């Protein structure tokens, strides 16, 4: 069963809409290309990356990516080219900078806060006030009565 689920997840991940067959100078360049079109957003469809979208703009941006790599640009230069024109939104993996600090660190801050809260709670529960001597005596009495 688990194997089947893994298979399905894998299949879903590789369901690309890419139709162009590009020739690359090296396997490494092809890997960079595939990585880039996975990480760049198609701005028309917004919830798809360039590799998963059939939109016209996605096709043009794939062509742009391919051409820039073939001209010897590094993947970082391609990303910078896209960000210069379309803004940070084109990146599926937002950059770490002052305006995205909350986005990157927020979940960890929340985790720490929740953990602190839970630990404090657990600690408090352990330190419940022990019953006073009278109450203890009465409880013992009741228990022994019920056993007879």
């Amino acid at each position, binding site marked *: 069963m688990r194997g089947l689920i893994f298979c399905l997840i894998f299949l879903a991940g590789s369901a690309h809409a890419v139709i162009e067959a590009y020739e690359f100078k090296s396997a490494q360049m092809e890997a960079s290309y595939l990585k880039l079109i996975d990480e760049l957003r198609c701005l028309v469809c917004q919830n798809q990356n360039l590799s998963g979208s059939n939109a016209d703009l996605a096709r043009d941006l794939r062509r742009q990516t391919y051409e820039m790599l073939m001209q010897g640009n590094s993947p970082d230069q391609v990303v910078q080219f896209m960000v210069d*024109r*379309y803004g940070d939104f084109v990146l599926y993996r937002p950059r770490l900078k002052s305006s995205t600090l909350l986005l990157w660190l927020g979940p960890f801050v929340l985790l720490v806060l929740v953990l602190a809260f839970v630990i404090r709670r657990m600690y408090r529960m352990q330190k419940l006030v022990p019953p006073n001597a009278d109450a203890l005596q009465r409880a013992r009495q009741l228990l022994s009565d019920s056993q007879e």
Partner: protein
Amino acid sequence: MRYRIPLAVFIIMVVLLGYGLSLDPKKVPSPLIGKPAPEFSLARLGNPQQRFAQEDLLGQVWVLNVWASWCVSCRAEHEFITRLSEQNLVAVIGLNYKDDPVEARQWLEQFGNPYTISVMDRDGRVGIDWGVYGVPETFIIGKDGLIKYKHIGPVTQESLNNEVIPVLHKLIG
């Protein structure tokens, strides 16, 4: 009130989510505002031997409107682009984006041509340089050649009167 903290957290979340709903995810802020207008030199629609380059308008305030005959919302904003050009404030340059020249010319004949000049960006490369992703888009370029304003989607009566025209008046001075 032992539920004070969870209630406060809940209210904060509702307010934040409500604010999120009021935003338009289609409105992506352009990084090009305040940057130099990307250079281009393209053949003119209807007169392909002549080219038009954006340097030709350096020192002037002008409008670049990205349009296409296949674009439905361009039809919707056509009336307001026409109104803009009728005011004779500035040159309104049409960037005919990924279009067929024959269909584009027919479109202009049928509905009227509001553009001072239209140029053809058939493969969409100039569009990429201008960060175009949703036709129609409208840019305003200042005398210094910097992009001052960008409107994504069709220009409406409201955005024409409240944004485009006031921005133009301010830039013309």
